């Protein structure tokens, strides 16, 4: 009952969107510049805005906070109901989705004319997550990638003075750690897609083929990545469990239950706060090992976008241009621990002094974007579900890759149809 009403409401919302758009079109230019921020960033942004307000007293910025869990639905509903803000923070995997809706304003012209935003100062992998069909639709705000957190002391006891540089050395270290009594030296939570995705991005083949309308998970590269991933679990290096079951990663890491953890930048702060004092210098961060030498990783993070329906695009761009300044990004780092996407922002004192953040800077030079299709989030979820099932029940990498391709092709069926008609 409830369900059908909800669906109808959405249908009506979709049907009336053009109407309300014309109504809104009649309204004047008045009203504040609306900014949607998410989670912690949405809270902190108010503090950063003081400087902007001093420089542009005429622009009234109104910040609205969304929780991350509801943000995706909110954005789509806002689009359907013609209630999109002027500027928003957007997880960069969502850029393609909103681009497919035509909801985002291209920034190429404004960026080319901007003295502040310099493309070659940004990490290239991150910059490219914002390009869909050759158009720049967002400016990177902060970056997120996954790399290795490791226990230096345990590794030293196992006879190694450096973190692993390639897959083979990694496995060697894992085996050596087992020998000194760390039964399962790595954790790969089976509900997190990032580790496997990072391994997959290290391969040469793209993850989708035929203009991103079919899965390419049966490529030799992905199968190699998947086999390596499953091997880590089958050889007992990592337990089969979800992050819920681990419950307190920091404590377990401190106790030495495991020595490797693939995680993101926010964990630098968490580990620093929560690891027991005697282990203060016992852990470090390192770029992710690849098949031959150091490898690529995911290009996550958030971008700032301007919505197509905004009638205050010049003011909106002034705002995201302000956030792109290295010194503002530095302050943003102080407030949140989010890593800046610009290379020059890394000269910020607090960042330059942090040895553990440096591994991220190195990794960021080697991050790769995922295919810019609206279906990507579903695809990557599907990939992880199949991989988790294979890890738990023991399917082969080849069978699993075939199963992933089958479900991905189903997800992309509509996209294929549109592509044949030249609409996607």
């Amino acid at each position, binding site marked *: 009952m409830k369900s059908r009403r909800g669906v109808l409401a959405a*249908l009506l919302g*979709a049907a009336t969107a053009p109407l309300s758009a014309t109504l809104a079109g009649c309204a004047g230019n008045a009203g504040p510049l609306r900014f949607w921020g998410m989670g912690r960033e949405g809270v902190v942004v108010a503090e950063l805005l003081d400087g902007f307000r001093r420089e542009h007293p005429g622009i009234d910025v109104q910040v609205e906070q969304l929780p991350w869990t509801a943000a995706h639905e909110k954005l789509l509903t806002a689009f359907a109901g013609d209630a999109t803000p002027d500027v928003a923070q957007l997880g960069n995997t969502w850029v393609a989705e909103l681009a497919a809706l035509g909801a985002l304003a291209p920034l190429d012209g404004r960026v080319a004319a901007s003295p502040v935003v310099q493309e070659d100062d940004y990490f290239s992998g991150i910059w490219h997550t914002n390009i869909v069909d050759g158009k720049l639709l967002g400016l990177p705000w902060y970056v997120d990638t996954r790399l290795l957190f490791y226990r230096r002391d345990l590794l030293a006891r196992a006879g190694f003075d450096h973190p692993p540089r390639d897959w083979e050395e990694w496995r060697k270290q894992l085996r050596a750690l087992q020998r000194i009594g760390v039964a399962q030296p790595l954790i790969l939570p089976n*509900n997190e897609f990032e580790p496997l995705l990072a391994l997959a991005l290290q391969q040469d083949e793209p993850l989708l083929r035929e203009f991103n309308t079919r899965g390419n998970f049966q490529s030799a590269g992905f199968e190699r990545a998947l086999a390596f991933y499953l091997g880590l679990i089958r050889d007992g290096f990592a337990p089969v469990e*979800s992050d819920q*079951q681990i419950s307190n990663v920091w404590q377990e890491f401190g106790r030495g239950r495991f020595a490797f953890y693939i995680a993101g930048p926010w964990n630098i702060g968490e580990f620093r706060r929560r690891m027991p004092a005697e282990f203060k210098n016992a852990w470090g961060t390192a770029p992710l090992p690849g098949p031959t030498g150091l490898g690529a990783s995911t290009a996550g993070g958030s971008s700032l976008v301007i919505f197509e329906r905004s009638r205050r695009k010049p003011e909106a761009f002034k705002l995201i241009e302000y956030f792109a300044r290295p010194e503002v990004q530095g302050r943003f780092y102080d407030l949140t621990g989010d890593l800046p996407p610009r290379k020059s922002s890394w000269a910020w004192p607090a960042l330059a002094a942090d040895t553990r953040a440096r591994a991220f800077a190195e990794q960021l030079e080697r991050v790769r974007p995922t295919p810019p299709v609206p279906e990507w989030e579903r695809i990557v979820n599907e990939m992880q579900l199949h991989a988790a099932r294979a890890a*738990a029940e023991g399917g082969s990498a080849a069978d699993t890759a075939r199963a992933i391709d089958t479900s991905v092709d189903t997800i992309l069926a*509509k996209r294929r149809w549109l592509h044949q008609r030249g609409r996607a």
Partner: protein
Amino acid sequence: MTRTQWAGLGFVLPALTVIGLFFVVPVVAGLGLSLTDFDLYALVSLKNLRWVWLDNYFTLLQQPLFWKALGNTVYFVVLGVPLSIALSLGTAVLLQSPLVRFKPLLRTALFAPVVTTLVAVAVIWRYLFHTRYGLVNEALQALGLNPVDWLGDPRWSMPTIILFAAWKNFGGNMIIFMAALQAIPSDLYEAARIDGAKAWAQFRHITLPSLAPTTLMIGILTTAGYFQLFAEPYVMTQGGPLQSTVSVLYLMYDQGFKWWNLGTASAVAFLLFGLIVLVTRSLMKLANRGASA
């Protein structure tokens, strides 16, 4: 039509309009939607919308996740409904006993979960069932048992949800049972006592048969309600771990509001609707046969 007929029509028209506008139109629109592939692309332009007729239904029936969700929902109903009804009946009978003191207080306390906000109590239950700090696991450990990962282990997540739902919902049915119990004439019990029937025999041969119509009604309502499991997994587990708490309605929510596949989501809704009709009809049939036998 005669004048009276016109007058009659005039009287029912407001109600019919409301029903038509808020029930018939949405249902028909939902049915129509379930025959299309309405998705994100169709939101951009209706040119991207295709009539796919029954394709959504066929695709769903071939999807392992749909069957998994159905299995989870049936698991929840088959275990949850009897448990919930037994709890309601048990507490109602106990509260009826002349030995119980502070009846109004107990009645209020047992009814309270029904009228509290689900999200608020879910937060408390998550604490209670926390693997490391939860009261439940502390009690288990005090008894010398191993702690259980209630919400993180795919084998335990659904039983935990069932416990939670039964606790949250039994109070409402308890009140109905109490009303029905009061309607049983006390001379029946007196006669039974004179014949030498003990408490259990009285319960089996007087209380249960007298409550049969009430139990049937409660059974049907609870079953229909439990098939629509959604809020509990949504706030407690988000469908996890390993999709062990994805219910049919949760699947619909995911399809419709997370991935914006409104066509598929409507098809899920209609499949669930058909299933509920089927199950409640067979419950009625079963009860009728029992009554005539």
